[in-house]
């Protein structure tokens, strides 16, 4: 069947190569050679467009659902899927390659999004700071609201950042909504800094990069990236993960076909392509995420990363994350 579709697509493309438009978040990056091979194989032309960070991207898709921006979307994750679903943005397609993705990493049964990769949002800390100040590491979220850890932590805002939202979901999952909001207020009173986005937190406020906060909300793979992107060879990462219970979140990023596509066959092939061996092996050290398909070999530097033991977030919390964000904005951010 697939071969027939391919040859039909090829015949149609004999006159003019079909163009497949793929919309992604800004961090997307893939080896151009792999894309060229896909184009040659399918007789198509792939056009990538970037739509801001994942949250902005979703909003752009919702605003323009009457005239879809693209055929395929990559980069929506498990915290954004509920909104994409209720807006009716995606059309179901389950890639055969999903068979090689372990069950706990699959995004949804209908196949609106096919998991391409996963990662862990986690707190990192500046090792040198804790050594120099002879400070014991905090052991729980509650510790972060205590005086000895005052003004040490910077996190991203759940209202404007996907890592921030992941952290909020994780705290609510761990503490329950009321106690979580209470914790956020206490932590803020204790000098928890809230920034808008990841790069503000990491490059401006994190003590390793000139800021004054030795604990930062980032990813569990960031210590490995620190080694990989070090200015000179390192044998240990200058940062490490601080895996407090209720502070880590498993983020699943997926690819899906947008409703209204005029290139359905090609779009589905692209979904399969994202789950193919070549792309899965190329992704990790470009985007610092784990490949969703099992059995893909990781580069050596990944030994500096950690796979935390994460309690999965309760399904009902993922039903309407926006309501949680609204509650956070009124009860934490705007509360004086």
């Amino acid at each position, binding site marked *: 069947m697939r071969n027939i579709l391919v040859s039909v697509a090829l015949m149609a493309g004999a006159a003019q190569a079909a163009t497949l438009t793929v919309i992604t978040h800004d961090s997307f990056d893939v080896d151009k050679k792999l894309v060229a091979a896909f184009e040659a194989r399918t007789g198509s032309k792939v056009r990538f467009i970037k739509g801001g960070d994942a949250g902005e991207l979703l909003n752009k898709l919702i605003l323009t659902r009457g005239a879809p921006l693209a055929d395929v979307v990559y980069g929506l994750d498990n915290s954004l899927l509920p909104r994409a679903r209720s807006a009716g943005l995606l059309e179901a397609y389950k890639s055969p390659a999903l068979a090689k993705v372990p069950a706990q990493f699959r995004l949804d049964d209908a196949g609106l999004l096919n998991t391409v990769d996963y990662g862990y949002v986690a707190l990192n800390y500046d090792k040198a700071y804790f050594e120099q100040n002879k400070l014991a590491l905090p052991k729980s979220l509650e510790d972060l609201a205590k005086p000895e850890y005052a003004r040490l932590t910077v996190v991203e805002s759940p209202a404007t950042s996907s890592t921030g939202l992941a952290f909020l979901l994780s705290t609510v999952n761990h503490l329950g909504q009321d106690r979580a909001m209470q914790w956020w207020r206490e932590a803020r009173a204790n000098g928890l800094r809230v920034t808008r986005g990841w790069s503000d937190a990491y490059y401006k406020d994190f003590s390793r990069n000139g800021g004054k906060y030795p604990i930062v909300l980032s990813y569990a793979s960031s210590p490995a990236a620190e080694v990989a992107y070090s200015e000179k060879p390192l044998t240990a990462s200058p940062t490490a993960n601080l895996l407090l219970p209720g502070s880590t979140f498993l983020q699943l990023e997926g690819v899906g076909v947008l409703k209204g596509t005029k290139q359905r066959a090609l779009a589905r092939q692209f979904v399969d392509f994202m789950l193919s061996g070549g792309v899965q092996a190329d992704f990790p050290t470009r985007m610092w995420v784990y490949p969703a398909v099992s059995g893909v070999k990781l580069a050596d530097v990944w030994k500096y990363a950690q796979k935390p033991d994460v309690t999965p977030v309760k399904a009902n919390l993922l039903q309407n994350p926006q309501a949680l964000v*609204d509650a956070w904005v009124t009860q934490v951010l705007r509360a004086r």
Partner: protein
Amino acid sequence: MSGPRRALGWLVAAPALAFLLAFLALPLVRVLREGGVSVGVWADPYFRERLAFTLAQALGTSALAVTIGTPLAYLLSRYAVPGKATFLRALLLPFVTPTLVAALGLLALLGPHGLLGVDLSDTPGLIVLGNLFFNLPVMIRLAYAAFARVPANALNAARTLGASGARAAWTVAAPLALPGILAGATLVFLYSALSFGLPLVLGGERYATLEVEIYTLTAYELRLSEAGALVGGQLLITLLATGAYLWLARTSGAVQATRALPRARRGTAALLYTLLALVAFICFAPLLAVTFGSVRGTDGLTGAFWAGLIAPDADPPLTLLLGNTLRFAGLTLLGALTVGGTHALGAWLARSRTLDLLSLLPLMVSPISLAVGYLLLYPTLRAELPLLIAAYTLLAAPLVTRSLLPALRAVPPRLTEAARTLGSSPLRAWGTVTLPLVLPALRGGGALALATVLGEFAATLVLTRPEWATLSTAMYERLGRPGAQNLGEACALATLLMLLALAAFTALDGGKGEIT
């Protein structure tokens, strides 16, 4: 005579007006129609507080910019200062600096481990300094141009009649230069009232401006009706400010030929060089800190970051980044000169305050809302280059109009009349008399427009494509990943952007050092 001239003016401005309609008015209306306007949001004390902060920081920045910028501009226009042209040209650098780089630079100086040993982070102090970093150059350049138009003999007459230098400056030069000073203060107010990037990065959630709230409501929370109400309020404020400015700035002096200027002495010299040092610190020290960041490794100086940029396997290659940056900036410059130039010409010919006001519209509306309007209104153009260039042009054109219009108004009518009497056709009189007189202003406006575009990055504005990567988008991409190498390369890219800007200004300026 005046009837046909008025009609001709509107005719000349018509394409620019059509452009404003297509890329400003219609998109904005489309967004407001999509979401509606929920005026109730103004009842929320939170948003009223944001409004108060927006106004306070804009007024404060304007006041400080006038206090520091005006005396310096005056002294620069009256006294010979070695390297003045270079200084004025370099003043455009903060303009091209992407906000995150400015913030990194300011923090490197005055952050927790700042080179100066003072920590201003988390205080309004750093935001005010950042505001001045971006806006002081605008103030100085516009005030300088205004003072340069003050006739020297008026000042000399005052001095002959016994007035002190300061008194002559205050009673003769200042009133004559008032339109230019007000123009500068108004632009500073408008830029600060609409400021987005700096409070976004430095302000956290405590010092957010209306534009930051509009961005959050639009891009992240998709509450268009509440954003619509904020857009309306913001537009009202900026319209009032601009209306007041146009009403105040009704007169303008004539351009003066460059003369030999005396050197400043004693008290005047002390004041001049103190102010110069202060401005240089505010406007250049953060940039130097960033440049330093591009060669400062964990232990001592390193070339690793620059080497990373030019490495043969760099993706995208530096040549693509440079090529795109130059191509987009060039196309935008062309667009801005056409749109902004014809708009100024039309407003001058028609002597129309309305046309004048309309040219300022792009500075008054929220670019974030416009971007949403483009998405909704132009489905087929959304990821096409012309839309990106149009959006850039929209932001840059007012700067050309603002520079050109005062210069056109200052051309003595008698000169063109003389040319006509001697048998020149209107077109020839324009080409041989008017154009050469306003060319410096056109070049200055072009340089400002170019500066706006070089530092702009399109991601928040319209959908971008990976093959359109520019120096600034590449920089943001690096700042999206951890590691010393990424931060260092981002600093190197920022440095490159500054060098490119400096080269572009020098080329535009024709090496004559005549910048208005």
